[in-house]
């Protein structure tokens, strides 16, 4: 059974999502709003059901949610946001090498040379697969565009 605290937080988040969808859909024409305005209250009701169930299990254990636990994942998420932001400026190959190398080293992989080799190798192979073989127009560095 899931942690009651997690379920309670989840119910709050889902409730907020349902309310947000409902509130935004109120501004739409009747036909366009029909489906979402039926679904949002349903989601809200299910979220309340989940929340009540979680509260009924209160005191049955449940670890606190620690952000430090998710540090490496958050690091990679931030890296990917940065990757998407710079892709069209620094080009596919340079951005990809940086992404793979930073991911490996940032997570705690200690062999730097291997990390760099893997980064260069994988970026070139994936470029060959997508860019050359499948002819996907992958971005070039800004100065080459």
């Amino acid at each position, binding site marked *: 059974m899931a942690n009651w605290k997690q379920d309670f937080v989840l119910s709050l988040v889902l409730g907020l999502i349902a309310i947000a969808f409902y509130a935004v859909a109120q501004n*739409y024409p009747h036909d366009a709003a029909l489906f979402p305005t039926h679904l949002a209250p349903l989601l809200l009701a299910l979220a309340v059901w989940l929340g009540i169930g979680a509260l009924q299990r209160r005191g049955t254990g449940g670890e606190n949610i620690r952000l430090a636990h998710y540090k490496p994942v958050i690091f990679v998420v931030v890296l990917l946001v940065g990757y998407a932001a710079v892709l069209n400026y620094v080009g596919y190959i340079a951005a990809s090498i940086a992404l793979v190398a930073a991911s490996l080293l940032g997570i705690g992989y200690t062999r730097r040379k291997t990390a760099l080799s893997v980064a260069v190798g994988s970026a070139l192979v994936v470029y060959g697969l997508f860019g050359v073989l499948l002819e996907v127009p*992958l971005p070039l560095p800004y100065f080459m565009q």
Partner: protein
Amino acid sequence: MDAHILPSLLAVLTPDVFLVLVLGVLLGLVVGAIPGLNDTITLAVLVPVTFSMPPNYAFALLVGVYCAACYGGSIPAILLKIPGTASSVVTLNDGYPMAMSGRAGLALGISTISSVIGGIISALVLIFFAPKLAVYALSFGPPEYFSLAILGLSTVAGMSGKKVLKNLIVCVLGLLISTIGVSPQTGFARFTFDMPLFYEGIPLVPMLIGLFGLSSVFHMIEQFAQKNSQEHQIPTIGRTMPGMKLFFELMPIILVGSIIGTIIGIIPGAGMLMAIYMAYDFARMRYPHLPFGTGVPQGVAAPESANNAVVAGSMVPLLALGVPGNSTSALFLGALMIQGLRPGPALFREHPDTAFFIVVAFLVANIVMGPLGLMLGRGIAKVIFKLSQIIMAAVIILLCATGAYSVGNDPSYVLVALLFGVIGYLMNKNDLPQAPLVLAMILGPMMETGFEQSLVLSRGSYAIFFTSPISLVMLIVATIFSLVPLYSRLKEKLAARKAAI
């Protein structure tokens, strides 16, 4: 009609054409097995390439890729818990636990055999019964499509076991997310916040890449950071061929999965996910005593036979009626038109050689896929397992990001994949199943359109869903599916009470 089958078979078996078909199958296996790549992306790139090819080469290549990519997706699903393609979403439920318990080879073998049988059965249907089946699917109207979507979602309830509430939440959330984009009825943009990226809804492929690819990588990273890497748990591949006893045990499930896949495949828009869920759900009902989700061979056989049966099934409406069954078969429409052919009833009359060449090529491609899949699947598996988990995670991040980018040639697609990667990761943490979210998001527009059009037709009366016999049957089956978890729970309670007494 049958007079064209033998000449077409001989044309497919011509050495040069056969070689192109085998190359297509190999390419399909590889792209299907690599997370982030799939048959749609590959065919989208290959279709323009076939412009300069003779028709037989072009269709042999495309058919080979389409057939094998669907099966290839099961390799990373079984070994890495990452579906290479959306068609393997359900395979990982039991395939991955089988691999973790040292039966990776057996899971791959069952997947191959089921895929080949499913593919052959649907190819035979395509060859012999295409016109009749297409006429049946053509009789579907808005109420039938609405009921079909209800039926598809009811299978989720049937699969939920003890997590009915969380499954329902995910379904409703998926339906709500499916309303993002232009309204199918009114053309009004909803929840798009003036971002053109979302006008046609959440892009499916980046969403799948994120939900299944990136979220799994995040899990791998978390484990590595906790010095809890699973490298020591890497299973041995082991024997791939199931024994005769197991083979005959699986046969009924494979046959039913193939039939479900073929029927769903010929219904335009119904899609592969619905077929695999229905096949899996049937297996669960057929064997209620088996602990599905923990590494049950039937849990691999059912979805794998269904998904490959969808492939040839989806070509029935395209070739017979000119209506593509799914996005990949829509690419075939482009390939046919590039070759100066017009898909539809006239195709079989005016260009029987090409039409029958394509349908026979599906049969041969599925037969070729068997030995190649067994040989290559094992090889791919070995290569995958020789890689360090953390290095593989970093490379998969790159593949996922590149795959998402290549869908729209825009970095914002990478962000969509990332968003759904985070959502998938958080869903995993909260015991929320991911697959029903995808099913609901795909069925949402069909359900909404069917619902609204039906009410327009009936002038607001809900009776329209019950007066159509096909719709009524589907709603009855959906009700039965929905009641399965309640029935199981009631049965458990009664058994517990009996034991207490």
